[in-house]
């Protein structure tokens, strides 16, 4: 089952929310969450549930060991054991393609989506936090199971730490205000996935599939937008569904800001995951030189890239990001961080070029394709400025692209925010008009997204 499945959105989630609403006690809500998560994961892959619950119970036991008053070597051994457990679980469930050629271990597809494998990161973060003292070892395994495998947390959600979630797991309330805010967050996220992502996908495939100048530039821009929209959409749905269930998560996806250079881009992409990886990697070198910290940040980039794919070019993209991040930490930030207009323009050009380079490595599968794309960018040996496929894709999705551009482009986004703020701050009637307009837009987006998903399901 996936987050964009109609049976999940319009059948599974409402029933679970309704069941959770029936009883006020948090223990009951946790129980409903665990049962529904079992169904969520057993949907299609029942035996995965057995493996997952076994690993979660092991996490709980190792957390007890890591958080105990035993000697540090024992506690450290528990952390390493948990790291090995979760890495092997991750490889088995998500990246089992690397076992190709090992016979019995060969599995053709990943068993669960990468997003769902966040539970391995969450399980390790719990043991790590117990070791560092950030969280207390939990004696009741039900809380650990609810924290680790609850499906609102299992979508590609922010890496919430157990120390932050423990109070919410023990005491939370599902209120009308939270449900309303949850819908306000989840519906635009769904619209991003159902409407905006296909638009960007169409433009990207048309542009990068051809050999034209405009196709090269616009195609890569659309590809980057597609990835950003996909991630922010998934995060929005996750945070929205969490809010409906009474959870509050931190934001994990931030708008792209050229001022932050590549370090800012890498950090803002999946902030909570990056912070956790950096924390784990820099933990042993806290009191050492800055060079080691830079190295840890660079290694962090490669590890985070390998979290998504073990493809050669994705790892290469991670390596390039690591190189640039290390260079920025060492000297580039000082060079490009000037307050003058020319320094700002140069830093913006640098960040955009680096982003294009990193994302292009994740798109192409061979150096020949990459070289052809670079040639098309420069207009060398191309088939013209724009081909018919690109024009068709642009005109077909004109409205969606325009709306997405307005919502994503910082100046227009800021202008929209200022206008609505001004209107709602003028009078009570203005405030009401803005709220009603937002409600109407939400309903329209919901209908559009549902109809688009239903149409797509018919095709499948």
């Amino acid at each position, binding site marked *: 089952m996936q987050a964009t499945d109609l049976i999940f959105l*319009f059948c599974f989630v409402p029933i679970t929310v309704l069941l959770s609403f029936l009883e006020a006690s948090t223990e009951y809500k946790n129980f409903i969450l665990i049962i529904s998560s079992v169904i969520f994961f057993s949907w299609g892959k029942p035996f995965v549930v057995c493996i997952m619950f076994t690993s979660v119970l092991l996490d709980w036991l190792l957390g007890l060991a890591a958080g105990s008053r035993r000697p540090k070597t024992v506690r450290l051994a528990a952390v390493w054991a948990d790291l090995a457990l979760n890495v092997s679980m991750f490889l088995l469930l998500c990246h089992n393609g690397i076992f190709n050629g090992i016979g019995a271990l060969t599995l053709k597809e990943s068993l669960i989506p990468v997003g769902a494998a966040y539970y391995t990161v969450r399980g390790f973060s719990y043991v790590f936090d117990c070791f560092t003292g950030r969280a207390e070892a939990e004696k009741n395994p039900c809380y650990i199971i609810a924290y680790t495998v609850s499906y609102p947390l299992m979508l590609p959600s922010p890496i919430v730490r157990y120390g932050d979630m423990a109070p919410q797991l023990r005491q939370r309330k599902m209120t009308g205000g939270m449900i309303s805010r949850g819908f306000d967050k989840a519906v635009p996220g769904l619209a991003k996935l159902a409407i905006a992502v296909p638009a960007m996908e169409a433009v990207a495939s048309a542009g990068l599939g051809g050999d034209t100048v405009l196709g090269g530039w616009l195609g890569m821009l659309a590809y980057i937008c597609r990835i950003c929209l996909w991630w922010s959409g998934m995060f929005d749905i996750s945070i929205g569904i969490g809010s409906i269930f009474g959870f509050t998560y931190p934001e994990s996806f931030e708008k792209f800001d050229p001022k932050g250079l590549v370090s800012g881009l890498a950090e803002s992409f999946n902030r909570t995951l990056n912070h956790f990886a950096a924390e784990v990697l820099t933990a042993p070198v806290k009191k050492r030189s800055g060079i080691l910290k830079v190295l840890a940040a660079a290694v962090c980039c490669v590890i985070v890239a390998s979290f998504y794919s073990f493809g050669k070019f994705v790892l290469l993209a991670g390596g390039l990001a690591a190189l640039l991040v290390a260079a920025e930490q060492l000297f580039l930030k000082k060079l490009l961080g000037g307050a003058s207009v020319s320094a700002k323009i140069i830093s913006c050009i640098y960040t955009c070029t680096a982003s294009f380079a990193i994302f292009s490595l994740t798109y192409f599968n061979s150096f020949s394709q990459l070289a052809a794309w670079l040639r098309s960018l420069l207009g060398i040996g191309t088939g013209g400025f724009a081909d018919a496929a690109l024009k068709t894709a642009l005109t*077909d999705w004109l409205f969606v692209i325009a709306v997405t551009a307005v919502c994503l482009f910082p100046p227009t986004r800021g202008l929209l925010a200022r206008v609505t*703020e001004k209107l709602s701050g003028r009078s009570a009637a203005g405030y*009401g008009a803005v709220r009603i307009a937002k409600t109407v837009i939400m309903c329209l987006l919901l209908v559009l997204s549902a109809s*688009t998903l239903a149409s797509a399901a018919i095709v499948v």
Partner: protein
Amino acid sequence: MEDDKYNDIDLKFTDKSAKREESPDFGGSAGERRIGQGLDGCTGEASEMAERENEAEDISAVPDADALVIPESDDDPAEAALGSLAYDAVEAHYTFINLAAILIVFLTIGMTLFLIREGKRYSTDNVMLNMQTFADGSYTQSLSNRYIGESKLGGLASKLGGLLRYAYGINGESLKEKPEQGPIDAEGSETQTQTVTNPQGEPVITTTPVSSEVVINPEITGISVTMPSVTITLQSGFTGVIKHTSTSMTSSFTSTAPFVPTATTTSGESSETTPPESTPTGSEPPTTPEEQIPTDETTTPAPPTVTTTPVQTPPEETPVTTPAQTSFEQIPLTADGQ
């Protein structure tokens, strides 16, 4: 009753003063003060209490009753509290409207998906529940497919989505150029027409290919390839439609005109139709060439016979063939369309 709903809406702000800066000045005037009174009884009571306190303070400060003025200072804590309560009440009001509207839409879609069915409870790909189908996930997958596949909303949503996309220009259905109106195949989709003429006197064959669709769904079957459906229209009024996926092939033949076996010879600019020597329906009137040539606007009726032949090829090894190859290899066409 309404108050109970508002009590359920727990709006907790960590920094109310900051929130209030962005919000309208609900506590600024007497008229706006009524908003809170009208929406929430508690707010009304609080405002009355605050007014009484203000009156008491003013009376004690100013003995002259004619000079009694209610202070309008923003610094007054009572005014600030009043504004905060009014703001909370108004926000709760619109939050309730927002939640109710979205829930109605959400539940309507969900219930329609769940309740309105086409009537065929068990589809052809129905999988019985047993240990094997449960363990390999095919049972739950078939449930997912049936959820949308048997629902009437699938078609309704498709139509509604088409209308909305048309209205908003999404996917450019309103912008797409339609240079020529092709015949409509069995699926109802318009297709472009490509006419093949043979100067050797063979029947004119019209092929109508549509674009192939490759559906990648790693959760279900890895990669399923849906081959293009090809409509072949003969001038005698027979239409053959072939459509096959990675797991099945469907071919159908329909007739849109009374069967009159003719041989059409196309040479250069003129076409000559010669009736065969042995006409089986001699009582029928002779047909003119104009009557035999099907128009592009002809809608093919439902196919009388549909034959489904499962293909045992695994999905990974399914050969992807061009529409033209598919049509001529799979359908044994003869002049009379049999």
